[in-house]
C-alpha cells in the first residue's frame, strides 16, 4: 500500500554480518557514547541553592488584588467560577455595610472566596474572565501539604496584604489590557 504521509519506513529483516554478530564493535560504540556523556555538561540545577528561573508568563498561585486605596477589587460576580474549566472556584457574596468602603471597592463583595488548588489547572481563564482586574496568577508556587484540606485556599491566602502588594505587571501588560477590551477575542467565544 502506498504511504500517504510519506513518513512510513519499510522494515527489512536482514541477516547480521559476522562483525555485527560479534557485538563487540557495537559495544565499543555504545561505551564511547556513554563516555562522551560522562564528560558532558550536567543539566542538573542544584535546587535549594540555585533556583530555576520562571518563565515571564508563569501561571502559579493566584492573588486577589486590592485597588490603590487598599480596597478589595473583587465584586463576587462569579465570572471566574463560570469560566473555570476545572470548577475549582467557589464564592459567596455579601453586601457592603456602611463604613466598610475602605475594605471593599463596590457595594457587593466576596464574603468567602475559595480556590481548590488540587482542582485548579492553572489555565488562567479566571484571570481572563475577570472584569474588575481582581484575580491574577502570579509567579509564586503553591506549596505542598500533607492533607487535602490544606489545598483549599481561602481569602486569607488569596487576598494580597495591604502593606505587601504583589506585583502582577508581568501578567498585566498593556497588550493584555488591550486584549481584554475586546471580549470577542476570548477563548470562550
Amino acid at each position, binding site marked *: 500500500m502506498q504511504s500517504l504521509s510519506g513518513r512510513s519506513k519499510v522494515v527489512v529483516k536482514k541477516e547480521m554480518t559476522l562483525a555485527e554478530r560479534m557485538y563487540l564493535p557495537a*559495544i565499543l560504540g555504545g561505551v564511547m557514547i556513554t563516555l562522551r556523556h560522562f564528560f558532558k555538561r*550536567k543539566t542538573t540545577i542544584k535546587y535549594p541553592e540555585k533556583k530555576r528561573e520562571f518563565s515571564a508568563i508563569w501561571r502559579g498561585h493566584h492573588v486577589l488584588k486590592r485597588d490603590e486605596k487598599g480596597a478589595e477589587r473583587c465584586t463576587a460576580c462569579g465570572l471566574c467560577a463560570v469560566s473555570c474549566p476545572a470548577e475549582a472556584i467557589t464564592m459567596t457574596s455579601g453586601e457592603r455595610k456602611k463604613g466598610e468602603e475602605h475594605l471593599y471597592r463596590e457595594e457587593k463583595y466576596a464574603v468567602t472566596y475559595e480556590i481548590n488548588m488540587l482542582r485548579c489547572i492553572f489555565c488562567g481563564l479566571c484571570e481572563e474572565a475577570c472584569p474588575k482586574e481582581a484575580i491574577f496568577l502570579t509567579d509564586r508556587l503553591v506549596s505542598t501539604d500533607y492533607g487535602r484540606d490544606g489545598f483549599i485556599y481561602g481569602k486569607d491566602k488569596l487576598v494580597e496584604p495591604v502593606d505587601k502588594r504583589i506585583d502582577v505587571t508581568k501578567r498585566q501588560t498593556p497588550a493584555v489590557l488591550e486584549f481584554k477590551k475586546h471580549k470577542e477575542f476570548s477563548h470562550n467565544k
Partner: protein
Amino acid sequence: MSTFLIYKLALVLAVFGITLLVAMYSTYLERKVAAFMQDRVGPDRAGPFGILQPLADGVKMFMKEEIIPNVSNKFLFIVGPCIAMITAIMAGVVIPWGNTITIGGETYTLQIADINIGILYVFGVVSIGVYGIMIGGWASNNKYSLLGAIRASAQMISYELAMGLSIIALIMLTGTLSLREIALMQGGGVGSDWNMWNVVYQPVGFLMFIICAFAECNRMPFDLPESETELVGGYHTEYSSMKLGFYLFAEYINMFTSSALMATLYFGGFNFPFQNDLGLDPNLVTILGTVAFFLKIGFFIFFFMWVRWTLPRFRYDQLMNLGWKILIPLAIANVAITGLVKILVK
C-alpha cells in the same frame, strides 16, 4: 616468628579494611558514574561532593527494620548473606598487593599468603560464593527469590567453565598457578628483563576472562539473578536491612577482587613500566607499584560500572548461548592455539 605473625595480622587487617573501604566507595562511585553518564550530578549532599554518602547509606542500612519472613527457613535465611560476604572477602587473601618491602634487613611480602595454587584458591572460594545466593534465595520461600537463585547458580556454573578454560591458556604460558609469580613475570623494564604484560600474549583470553568476570559478579549485562524488571529483586527480594546490605556489599567486593585478579593476571599486577630503569630505591618502587596496582584496579572497577550503564541486560537464553556455545568453544580453541604456538616457538 612473632614479628612474622604480627606483620601478617597487620596485613590481614589492612587488606580487610581496604577491601571494605573500596567496596564502600564503589557504591558511591557507582552512583556517581551512573549519574555522570546520564548527564546528572549524582549524590552531592552528604559532605563535599557527597563523599560521606556511603556512611549515610551504611547508617540507613543498619537502622532499617529487619524482616525475616515467617515462612522462610530462618537459619539458612541468615546464613545466606553471611556466606556471600565471607567468601567475597576471603578471595582477597592470595592477591599480591605489592612486591617486597625491606625494613631493617627483614623482607616483607605485601601478600597475605603466597600459596602455589593461588588461582585455584580464588576459583574455589568464588564458586562457594554462589551458595550464599542460592541458599538465601531458596530460604526466602519466595518464587522470585528461587528463580533468581536458580539463575545465579546456572549462570555461575556456565561461566566458571569458560573462565577456567580461558585461564588455562595463561597458565600454559606462565607455568605457575601462584599469583605472585605470575605478577613477577610481567615485571617491566628496558634491557634484559623486558617483559610484556600477559594481555599482549593473551588478548582473546583476557576478553573471555573479563566477560566471565562480569557474569561471575552478576554485573549488568549478566545481572539476571537480580533482574529487578522481571524478578522484583531476584534472590534478595525478601531481604532487608544489613542482610540486604551484605548481599550488595558482597557484589562490590567481588568486583574489587575480580578487578584485582584481572590486573594481576593480565595487566602486570604491581608492576609498572620502566620500574627497574628509574634507579629508585626498591622500597619506593614497591610502594609505587602498589599505587599502580590500585590504579589498575580502579580502572577496572570503573570499567565494570561503565559497561553497566551502557549495555542492556541479556535474555536468559542468550546468556546460556553465549556461555556454552560461544565462550567455551572459543576458550578451548584459545588453549589449543596457545599450545600450538608454544611448541612452534620452541
